[in-house]
């Protein structure tokens, strides 16, 4: 029987490669009876989705180059 600690590890691994059948079935059975691990899985998926959103958001207003870096880069381009 898989423990919650095993299942959290396997849930993460399943996001990176496909698990062998036995483990896949073990995780699925565990999720039927464990609301915490089910919740954990949902939250990992939310984290993955957020990371993807962040990467896809091309122009969220945010931090900008400092004036000093801007000047330095301009100069190096002019001399380059």
């Amino acid at each position, binding site marked *: 029987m898989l*423990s*919650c*600690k*095993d299942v*959290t*590890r396997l849930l*993460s*691994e399943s*996001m*990176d*490669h496909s698990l062998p059948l036995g483990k896949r079935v073990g995780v699925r059975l565990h999720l039927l009876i464990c*609301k*915490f*691990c089910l*919740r*954990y899985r949902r*939250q*990992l998926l*939310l*984290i*993955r*989705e*957020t*990371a*993807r*959103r*962040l*990467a896809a*958001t*091309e*122009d*969220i207003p*945010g*931090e*900008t*180059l*400092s004036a000093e*870096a*801007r000047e*330095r*880069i*301009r100069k*190096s*381009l*002019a001399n*380059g």
Partner: protein
Amino acid sequence: MAKPANTDPAEWVDRYGDYLFRYAMLRLRDRPTAEDLVQETFLAALKARVSFSGKSSESTWLVGILKHKIADHFRNQAQEAPLGDTDLRDPPGPSPFAVSGHWASGPTDWGGNPADLYREKKFLDQFTECLSRLSPNLANAFTLREIEGADTGEICKVLNVTETNLWVILHRARMQLRRCLETRWFNRKTEREP
């Protein structure tokens, strides 16, 4: 077909500087490094300008160069500070699991509609803040996997780790990130809105 005219490099900083900087910041989490890599990108682009085919847009071309610079930076970081026991062992502090391996304190209900979260700038800021609290090896692995969307074989080469170790690092990264978001965002929110 006529080659599309490139813009004058003198305009690059105003045109693409902030965009490239934000791209680098999200992945590197460090202002001086991000600024340096943006500068290196422009200089490399200046040298390679004649070979720019015009098949992609100028900004896509510049991002492509920056992507390589970021991977090189991760590669160097992994060489200087290789994967240690601390990256593979359970993090310090109380374990969320009891000796039996079952949850001692399970994840709390985050509630609400997650689809709305992505639109909240403050949540995204907290997310990047939590990411920057991970050890560099964990944060870099997570960044390559979830932000860049690289496959695990590719990441193993950049970070110079075995696939089995990469799975462990990613598991640690996700678990710590989850816990950080729970403490610093979700639990605080319920306190604010009882």
